[in-house]
């Protein structure tokens, strides 16, 4: 038999799109992105408008002062008499951190680990992409989605800045939102790596949550005493928020370091996926 490959003429074909994995990750995720945006907006709209009657109120400050200092230090409620301190304590340091980290971790864990666990990654990898392309494009989609959430937060806080009398410097707000997104991305990328490593979504969630929780707990414990001050160095949470960026801004190094760490974790997930047996 002749080995002539009579490939049919390829005319009138449907064209390939650029970055198909990235595009699909974004289009598949729009509902979830919308949901998390609504959640973050709702949280902000619950806390920020009541700043004049809460944080700016001397009686409230008296109440906070009467609480055990260990408690107020743990939940970072020491400086809620300023708009920046209040927004940091109530939103960026607590409920906002919780929400965006859950979003980033669940996306990160699902992107590779969850896809392998469900059995769909196998078929995708048999098509015309390399493993590194799959990991890189899904990582890029994760970054875009988390930064979109940070942008939503930026816009909503900016909206309430005047009406609620928060008096936050816009440049400080911008870098705080970047740190906020960067912190969530560190947790989300850790989830991506752990998911890629194990091929299981639950381990990805565990890995990402460990980074978030340990960061928060180390910060809370280190706040208690000077002897435990060194725990701050191990806490991404402290690295982002320890210096009150909403009031004081941040140095470029901190920002660069966060996004460098995110890139390293993203690269690591690609390397991990490239090496392993998929679905074995």
């Amino acid at each position, binding site marked *: 038999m002749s*080995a002539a490959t009579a490939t049919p003429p390829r005319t009138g074909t449907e064209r390939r799109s650029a970055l198909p994995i990235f595009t*699909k990750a974004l289009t598949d995720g729009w509902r979830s992105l919308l949901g998390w945006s609504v959640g973050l907006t709702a949280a902000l709209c619950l806390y920020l408008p009541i700043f004049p009657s809460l944080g700016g109120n001397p009686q409230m400050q008296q109440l906070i002062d009467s609480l055990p200092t260990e408690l107020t230090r743990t939940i970072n409620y020491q400086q809620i008499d300023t708009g920046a301190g209040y927004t940091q304590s109530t939103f960026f340091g607590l409920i906002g951190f919780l929400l965006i980290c859950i979003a980033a971790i669940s996306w990160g864990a699902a992107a590779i680990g969850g896809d392998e666990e469900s059995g*769909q990654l*196998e078929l995708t*990898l*048999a098509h*015309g992409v390399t493993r590194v392309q799959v990991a890189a494009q899904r990582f890029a989609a994760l970054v875009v989605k988390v930064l979109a959430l940070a942008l939503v937060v930026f816009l909503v806080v900016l909206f309430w800045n005047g009406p609620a009398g928060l008096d936050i410097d816009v440049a400080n707000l911008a870098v705080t939102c970047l740190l906020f997104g960067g912190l969530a991305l560190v947790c989300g990328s850790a989830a991506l790596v752990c998911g890629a490593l194990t091929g299981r979504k639950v381990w990805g969630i565990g890995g990402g949550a460990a980074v978030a929780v340990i960061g928060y707990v180390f910060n809370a414990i280190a706040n208690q005493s000077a002897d435990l001050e060194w725990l701050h160095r191990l806490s991404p949470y402290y690295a982002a928020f320890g210096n009150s960026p909403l009031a004081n801004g941040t140095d470029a190094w901190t920002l660069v370091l966060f996004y460098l760490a995110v890139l390293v974790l993203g690269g690591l997930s690609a390397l991990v996926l490239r090496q392993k047996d998929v679905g*074995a």
Partner: protein
Amino acid sequence: MPRLSTVSTSNSESSPAIVAVDLVKKFGSTVALDAVSFTVPRGSVFGVIGPNGAGKTTIMRALLDLIRLTSGHATLLGTDSRNAGPELRRRIGFLPGELILEGRITGRRLLRHYANISGPVPAGRVDELADRLGLDLDRTVRTLSKGNKQKLGIVQAFMHQPDLLVLDEPTSGLDPLMQQVFLGLVDEAREAGQTVFLSSHVISEIQQAADQVAILRDGRIITVAGVEALRDTAIRHLRMSATGITATELYDRLSPLAGLGELDCRPATAGAEATAILTGAISPFVQAISPLRLTNLVVEEPDLEESVLGLYSTPEVARTEAVRS
């Protein structure tokens, strides 16, 4: 065999579709593949059969570089499959044995996504395939039956007209009519010069579709044979009853036949009935029973497990290189 990594177009056009050299895969202490070697020429249909757990799926996943070989290497279409680029993967269509598809979107959108990765896909090709298989592309994948999901899997493997099709248990879940439609697609692919590598545990399907068959057992290739050779070694169970004949007459008529074993003849209400197993060619048996007044005749599908066992115990069991017969 020289290791072919990146090769020029002319070289890759003339090289075999698959060259597997001493594939070994261990999962921990379990040896899933034990020095498997075979060659699949371009434009042929090559089948792999074997009992569950023999290593059929492992071979396919190793060829696709989804799992990494402990040792040995595989060359597909002239390119080493290990960490091969998208260009090679676009020339391959794969149907996994355990097909899992995204459930939330329609079949059409799912296929468009895969076409975006592995295309180009000729316009109208997807609809043509779906029509032939009787598949509704506008239904959400989640709502499709197992058979219809399998059809979707077949379409995604065939739609970009790849030079090499790797199909793991392609007809599982399909009804007999659709199995024939599928075998028609395989024939067309062969005529178009595409190469098909498929696995099955249904021997008749392989016999109908394949030029050559590798029989796999416990991670080893027991033999690579032409389809005719396989047919001759196949074991069929048969059951028959006839009128106007006694059990003894029936026994005397059937017992001299070569390849007939475990013959058991019993008297029945208006004649006699017999059961036996038949190895080898079927025509002498048909001639022997042609004068009889048969009321019933059942010749069962050759049983794969028995055939494999039969081959396993024959003396010329050797790991044969695939040579076209």
